[in-house]
């Protein structure tokens, strides 16, 4: 399958991506200052967008706290240099038009390497070519659609790049490839980008840009009343900004707050790429679907886990059934043995009597008595 295969190449490219992720180490201080401020503003933009996207009213305070935490954390990392005071008017609009785009490129991340993602169109027009790109933080990427050499003879080719229904206008064209440069800064930029080559046939390829997926568990975790359950969520290779746990009760989502109810819920692993939710003293009400949500710069990713809480009677019934079966089998074996021993003894006694008869006829009384003595 093209997606999974490209996933492997993707993985390697992503390693490259991570190496080249925006870590402006060079550049003049002035540039750097403006860079960080603009970046921080764009981060603030994305955060507000994220906040707007949230439905829960009760979780507002939590999210903002998390946002603050995240900003302070980010300030200490190399990846994006943030200052605590972030507020210059944004130079970026929501949709980068070519001029704005150029300007932004120059001012924001001029010293950042662009990661290229390439797709080779070999032209079997039936099968769609797709590539999944996982991004966890703001990056500049270049998406390239390259045409196979066998099609280089086609002259009249019209190439369009689209995101959904919107056309992207600024396309770089080289000899047989068409590319767009994109700056992915917030969730709205993620999605599917398609390049379509219209000639005699129409060939298209799609890039799916998405946040990292969380590895959950397809099979339910089975636990027992009164016991403890540990739910674990992992992301591979990407460190999320924050983790949140929810419990889906019917159609509602209830956030699990680790700081309240500490004798019931224990949450470990704040922002590493693994999180543990330990539920103590399970009851039937804890049965259900749990969701772990990893907040990345570019969006959120959800993993689902199912918890089943059984009572102790459930495994006890098969246990007792099997024990009963074993007892029955052992009894049968012993009874059969006693029965066959009795049969043997009876047969032996008969034979013995016959032999006795023989001896009595053949030998004298002395041997007879000693034989009887031996017979005990």
């Amino acid at each position, binding site marked *: 399958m093209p997606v999974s295969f490209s996933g492997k190449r993707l993985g390697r490219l992503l390693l490259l991506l991570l190496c080249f992720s925006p870590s402006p180490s060079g550049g003049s201080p002035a540039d750097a200052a403006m860079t960080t401020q603009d970046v921080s503003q764009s981060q603030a933009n994305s955060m507000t967008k994220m906040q707007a996207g949230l439905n829960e009213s009760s979780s507002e305070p939590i999210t903002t706290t998390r946002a603050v935490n995240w900003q302070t954390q980010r300030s200490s990392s190399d990846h994006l240099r943030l200052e605590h005071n972030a507020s210059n008017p944004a130079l970026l609009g929501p949709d980068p038009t070519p001029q704005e785009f150029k300007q932004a490129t120059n001012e924001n991340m001029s010293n950042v390497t662009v990661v290229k993602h390439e797709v080779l169109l070999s032209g079997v027009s039936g099968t769609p070519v797709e590539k999944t790109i996982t991004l966890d933080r703001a990056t500049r990427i270049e998406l390239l659609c390259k045409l196979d050499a066998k099609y280089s003879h086609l002259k009249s080719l019209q190439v369009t790049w689209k995101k959904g229904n919107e056309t992207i206008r600024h396309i770089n064209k080289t000899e047989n490839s068409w590319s767009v440069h994109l700056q992915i800064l917030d969730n709205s930029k993620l999605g599917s980008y398609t390049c379509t080559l219209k000639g005699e046939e129409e060939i298209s390829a799609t890039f799916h840009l998405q946040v990292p997926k969380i590895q959950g568990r397809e*099979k339910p*975790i*089975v*636990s*027992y009343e009164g*016991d*403890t359950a*540990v739910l*674990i969520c992992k992301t591979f290779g990407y460190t999320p900004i924050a983790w949140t746990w929810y419990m889906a009760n019917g159609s509602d989502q209830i956030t699990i707050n680790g700081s309240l109810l500490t004798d019931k819920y224990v949450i470990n692993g704040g922002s590493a790429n693994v999180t*543990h939710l330990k539920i103590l003293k399970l009851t039937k009400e804890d049965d259900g679907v749990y969701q772990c949500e990893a907040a990345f710069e570019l969006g959120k990713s959800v993993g689902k886990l199912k918890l089943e809480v*059984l009572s102790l009677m*459930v*495994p*006890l019934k*098969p*246990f*007792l059934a*099997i*024990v009963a079966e*074993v007892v029955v*089998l*052992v009894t049968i*074996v*012993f009874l059969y*043995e006693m029965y066959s021993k009795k049969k*043997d*003894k009876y047969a*032996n*006694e008969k*034979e*013995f009597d016959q*032999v*006795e008869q*023989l*001896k009595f006829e*053949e*030998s004298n009384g002395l*041997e007879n008595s*000693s*034989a009887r003595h*031996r*017979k*005990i």
Partner: protein
Amino acid sequence: PPPADAGQAPGPPDGGWGWVVVFGAFVSIGFAYAFPKGLAIFYKEIQDFFGTSYSEIAWISSIMLATTYGAGPISSILVNRYGSRPVVMFGGLLCGIGMVSASFCTSILQLYICVGFITGFGLALNLQPSVIIIGKYFLKRRPIANGLAMAGSPVMLCTLAPLNQFLFDNFGWRGSFLILGAILLHCCVAGALFRPIGPAIVAGKTQATGRKDVLKEVTGNATNAPTENKMEEEEGKDCCEKINQYLDFSLFKHRGFLIYLIGNVLMFLGFFAPIVFLAPYAKHIGIDEYSAAFLLSILAIVDMIARPTTGIIANSKWVRPRIQYFFSFSIAFNGACHLLCPLASGYKWLVVYSAFFGLAFGMVCAMLFETLMDLVGASRFTSAVGLVTIAECCTILLGPPIGGTLIDTFGDYKYMFIKCGAVMVLAGIFLFIMNYYNYRILAKEEKERKAKEEDPQSVRTESEDRNNWNKEPALDGPELEPLREEGEGLKKEMKGT
């Protein structure tokens, strides 16, 4: 007229109830070998639950294996004292109790004790007596019986693996341990099938003894000599060699036993490591997880077929007298497979390797205990197996960690395969050469003995031979003689009754 030698201590039946005993041993040995491997399915979950590292979980397996092999001598002592049946039934009960208590554990240390020690000890009490009782029930067809009984291990593994997965999906690890405890109780059923037999157990055969004595009276033989000899021997033993009655340490003077011990201890250093690392090696060279697991299935299936087949081959009249050579050959073959494994590049060749490995593994396992029985004789086998297992225990435990260290140091799996292959080829060659000398020395001793006893009392010689086979430190040569004589004796007995 009743035959002269018909009434002697009835030799192994070589059939009849013996096949039921083989089935019981099949179940018992299967659990003993396959259960520790089958538990690996639960480890990930338990690791997450207790928040421990993988190596701490792996200790459970190691403790279990160590206890199963290390408690061998205790098992032997108990069998020497009480016979196979009570020991196996108690072992099954202990396994069940161990797993049931494990399902209520709240820390990893408790798991070590319940699953590792208690269940491991119970499995040890299953393993040794099962092997011992086969030696008591079979002589002529013993290799086949051994091969069939040892086939229990791969069959149980193939059954337990999906069963464990099913139990885990439906009941979680605690419920699964509870139900597995009940399943392990089937060892008690297997133990119930182990009807006591053999000259040492006088109680069960009073009528037979009575009959035998009467018949001797009738035929007017050198009558009371055999039974009285036996009683005198037993009394002598009780007075002076009480310890040897429980655990025969005089085995260490037995040449064949020492050869077997050294060869096997060497062999186990490289025996289990390739199985442990086959799947990781496959994944390392780029094969996906399911295909890697499938390699192990191929191994198990070929193993399943190879064991009884090897038993049948080893029983044939060409191989049986030279069974030690066959055993050394199979060990060397196993080693050669491992040496060739690094050349396997690609999935197809790995499948071929797995198949050959399964074949070699099955061959070695099928004859593992048969060769020991052949060397020391059935009566001393009880103690021999206990002493051998505790010696093997060390190298079995060392094998995989040494392999792991090699892999970690060099970053390449091939050195581990080379090490295992080299060790096993060395062990095979050692056993081959030493057994060659042993056979020659035994043939010489046999000739000398025959020359000494060349007197007209052929009947007494026969009866002494039979007693020798039962009681005396068995020489290897006489194993072959009683084989033929027993056969004749049994045939006559059949005609007589």
